[in-house]
């Protein structure tokens, strides 16, 4: 598959990975690239392996074949905590807020890194609180008491605490009210302007087309197609082919 080249060196490059859960072969040689600061979509029907691709990049499942690089450096079998420190943020589809930790403590899991001064921590907090005022209001509340939309905001804010170079964002708008959806779209824009790359898995096609520069289409554990987002329309036959009901 010939991908339009985006930048001399991709930020993250996935090269032909095969991933298994036990004996089930889920990814059959997935390849994709994300350039620095680029917002890239990954779409496909349920169960094609989108989340598994993100988990493989994050080191949560280990590909048995293939290679993943970050800024040119192989990271294929690195443990997730090292990848987080390198600058990969992860927002899973089930959000996985630490339910018994307060909002502030959830944020601190990413903020309490060696070598981050208090002033910088405060600046990071101010930034997410300015963007998600509701999190500031609930900072002392347990994560598990937040609504679904608030938990999604917290999951994104928590990943932002790592000051990542890329965020792996898995179905952030799933089950959210329209008002929350547009807020998620806005934060993607803010992150993009800040130069943070995003690999976005989404079912919401209009949002994906608007937020992303490029889109990969997945089918049965492989990337089948690849397109520039601005050249696609919501009713494009390609979209029907890979997502159609």
């Amino acid at each position: 598959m010939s991908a339009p080249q985006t930048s001399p060196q991709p930020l993250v490059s996935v090269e032909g990975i095969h991933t298994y859960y036990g004996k089930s072969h889920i990814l059959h040689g997935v390849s994709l690239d994300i350039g620095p600061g680029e917002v890239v979509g990954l779409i496909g029907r349920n169960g094609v392996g989108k989340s598994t691709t993100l988990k493989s990049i994050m080191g949560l499942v280990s590909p048995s074949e293939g290679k993943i690089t970050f800024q040119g450096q192989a990271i294929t079998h690195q443990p997730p905590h090292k990848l987080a420190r390198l600058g990969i943020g992860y927002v899973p589809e089930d959000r996985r807020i630490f339910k018994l930790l307060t909002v502030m403590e959830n944020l601190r899991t990413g903020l309490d890194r060696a070598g981050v001064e208090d002033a910088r921590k405060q600046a990071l907090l101010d930034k997410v609180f300015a963007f998600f005022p509701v999190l500031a209001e609930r900072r002392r509340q347990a994560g598990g008491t937040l609504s679904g939309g608030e938990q999604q905001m917290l999951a994104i804010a928590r990943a932002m605490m790592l000051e990542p170079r890329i965020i792996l964002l898995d179905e952030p708008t799933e089950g959210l009210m329209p008002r929350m959806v547009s807020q998620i779209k806005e934060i993607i824009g803010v992150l993009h302007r800040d130069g943070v790359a995003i690999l976005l898995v989404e079912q919401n096609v209009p949002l994906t087309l608007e937020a992303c520069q490029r889109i990969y289409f997945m089918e049965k554990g492989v990337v089948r197609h690849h397109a520039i987002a601005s050249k696609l329309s919501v009713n494009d036959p390609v979209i029907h082919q890979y997502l159609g009901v």
Partner: protein
Amino acid sequence: MEIPWDIILIQTVNGLVTGMILALVASGLTLIFGIMDVVNFAHGELFMLGAYMGVVVLTTTGNFWLALVIAVLIVALLGAAMQITTLRPLLGRDPLNTILATFGLSLVLQNYALWQFGPVARKIQEPFTGQFTLFYLQYPWYRIVIAVLSAAIITGLYLFLKYGRYGIWIRATTQDRVMAQAMGIPVPWVHTAVFAIGAGMAAASGVLFGPLVGVNHAMGLDWVLKAFIVVVVGGMGNLGGSIAAAIFISLLEAYASIWVSPSQAIIVSSIVLILTLLFRPTGLFVPTPK
């Protein structure tokens, strides 16, 4: 029948003293279970080794408090080494693997102690021998000091978990190991640290309790059995529940031994355990069973 208030008060004090020591042993056990799903059958041996380290340092330095601190540090380091070599490779395997591994460690440590220190029980001299009058009894101050110190150590642990940076790491890892890693928390080292903390707390209980009983290679057995009961009754992995259960069960046993012999009083904790398993398997002091 007339209620013997004086005896009840004395037994309340006794129950609280054993309850606090038991809480100290059990909090390590429950912390370890909560974070890595490991039932540490070697916990009693860490208690026992703590007591022996106390004996060794006390005989060389003559200072009880120094012995306490050094025993805690040595056993904490030993705990870390045990975790890295034996438990870390087994993480995520069937619980049977870790049960067998810790059971094996417990046998090794017991026999090491027997070989190193011999079968004759050693004595730890309490740091002071003052007494106060409790009705018709001369009650040793040292017992009160044990209870207060245990409470202080547990409070310290609580504050560390609640406010410390690494305390937050421990709580996050306990709740969701995978997400904790994805947030950059070095989960394997958090596990090691928690095991070391649990081991250190067991050692502290061993040294503190040493003066009240003899120190021998099998002294961990009784304690770990009771600590297991406490951990189950308090709700596996629930720190507050374990502390409450330790005090509750120790008080019940203390009161029971007013009427029956102490060895029969132990039946009380078994009854509490069975009733808990039957009616509140998630723990007696867990507000809302999940």
